[in-house]
């Protein structure tokens, strides 16, 4: 009995499970990614591209699937379940790195002078109380002088000298100064960004242009300052000359429609055909060609004269 045929067919059946490569493909099971680092075999690539690609894809998929099946499984009602290990491939950031905050005035000064930043602890040791107290805030050390029950008055002090008030005012002033500096830092940080700077420049230019033509002669006879540039007007823009004639026809038809609807909106003089009397001509005839105003004036003065004469009679 010859079983070599059976053996060969059996071997052929399981040959597809193995992947033989010079460098084994890298498999990242976490992301289900296979990377084949082998150089492309030029011969088979040139001979039949389709089969080469198919073979490549098959090898990769096979490598991934054999890796998947080697994972430890836990039984579940839906069948065995494998937990994917965490991925090893590095994926690039989706968002750009946040921009560093622009340095404050103090930070710039410190950098120039080489001053190292010291972290000040929030708590401070109080010798009298023999305990750690807040540097600022509730029962802060900075409010010590304001809150002590007895205050020392300097020798030649004013009659109504109030140390509590003086200390409090000084503290409040320091807070206000700090807030002001913070605001200035913020403002400086905003000002440095190129976009707003550009905008500001444009705005200033617009203002200058407006003021230059805001004189009685529209800026025509004003004295030129040194280094002043000539004002640039708004450049007219036209449609491209090579636009297709069809598009232009549509535009002109739209314009025609608009013109017609505009004409309908405005009140028109009734046509001469509609009425028997041509009013314009009648006025011309009655006023002997001097117009409606003269006619109205005449009739008014006539009636006034008539009234006056009746009275005098």
């Amino acid at each position: 009995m010859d079983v070599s045929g059976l053996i060969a067919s059996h071997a052929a059946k399981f040959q597809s499970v193995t992947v033989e490569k010079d460098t084994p493909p890298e498999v990242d099971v976490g992301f289900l990614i296979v990377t084949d680092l082998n150089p492309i075999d030029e011969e088979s690539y040139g001979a039949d591209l389709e089969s080469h690609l198919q073979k490549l894809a098959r090898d990769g998929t096979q490598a991934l699937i054999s890796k998947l099946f080697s994972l430890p499984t836990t039984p579940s009602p839906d069948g065995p379940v494998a937990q994917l290990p965490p991925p090893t491939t590095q994926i690039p950031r989706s968002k750009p790195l946040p921009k560093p905050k622009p340095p404050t005035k103090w930070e710039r000064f410190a950098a120039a002078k080489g001053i190292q930043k010291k972290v000040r602890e929030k708590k401070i040791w109080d010798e009298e109380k023999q305990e750690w107290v807040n540097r600022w805030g509730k029962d802060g050390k900075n409010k010590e002088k304001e809150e002590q029950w007895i205050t020392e008055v300097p020798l030649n002090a004013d009659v109504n000298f109030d140390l509590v008030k003086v200390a409090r005012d000084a503290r409040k002033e320091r807070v206000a100064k700090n807030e002001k500096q913070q605001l200035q830092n913020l403002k400086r940080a905003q000002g440095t960004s190129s976009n707003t700077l550009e905008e500001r420049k444009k705005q200033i230019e617009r203002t200058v242009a407006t003021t230059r033509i805001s004189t009685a002669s529209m800026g025509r006879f004003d004295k030129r300052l040194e280094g002043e540039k000539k004002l640039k007007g708004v450049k007219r823009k036209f449609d491209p000359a090579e636009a297709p004639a069809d598009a232009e026809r549509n535009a002109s038809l739209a314009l025609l429609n608009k013109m017609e609807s505009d004409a309908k909106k405005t009140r028109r003089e009734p046509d001469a055909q509609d009425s028997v009397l041509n009013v314009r001509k009648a006025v011309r005839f009655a006023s002997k060609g001097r117009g409606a105003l003269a006619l109205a004036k005449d009739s008014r003065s006539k009636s006034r004269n008539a009234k006056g004469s009746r009275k005098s009679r």
Partner: protein
Amino acid sequence: MRPLTEDESKAVFTKLANYIVLYPFLIQDLRNEPYCFRLHRDRVFYVSESSMRLGISVARPNLVSLGTCFGKFSKSGKFKLHITSLDYIAKYAKYKVWIKPNGEMPYLYGNHILKAHLGRITEDTPEHQGVVVYSMKDVPLGFGVTARSTVDTRKLDPTAIIVFHQADVGEYLRDEETLF
């Protein structure tokens, strides 16, 4: 050379609307080709699309004329219709006036049309309406504006002016240098 702006098209169309019905004029295709208006050195040209495309490649100072000159814009932005547009206007004219053969010569020398020379006139032509002037053999000669409506002309004496002269084909000889 450039297309007309909206204001310019409006000026051209309102002027043309005095003489013709605009809609069929605008949708017409001459020789199976769409036509368009182009402005070059204040002059408005009515050009086929293909010649317009050819004209694009000519530098502005070298381009003298293209298509048919319809008229020109004055410096104050008013549009004046030229006699060269007569062929297109005559095709879509709303109101027409025919003049007798003895009136043709005086009209072609730039005179107004008198009642004595009037052959026929479209009925119910209103006063101050743009009209196209034809000879009795239906040859377009020019265009003008009516001085009186059709009804009023009946009572006038023969020397009264019926149509004010605006343009006539005699201008081809008289204004040869400035016309195109």
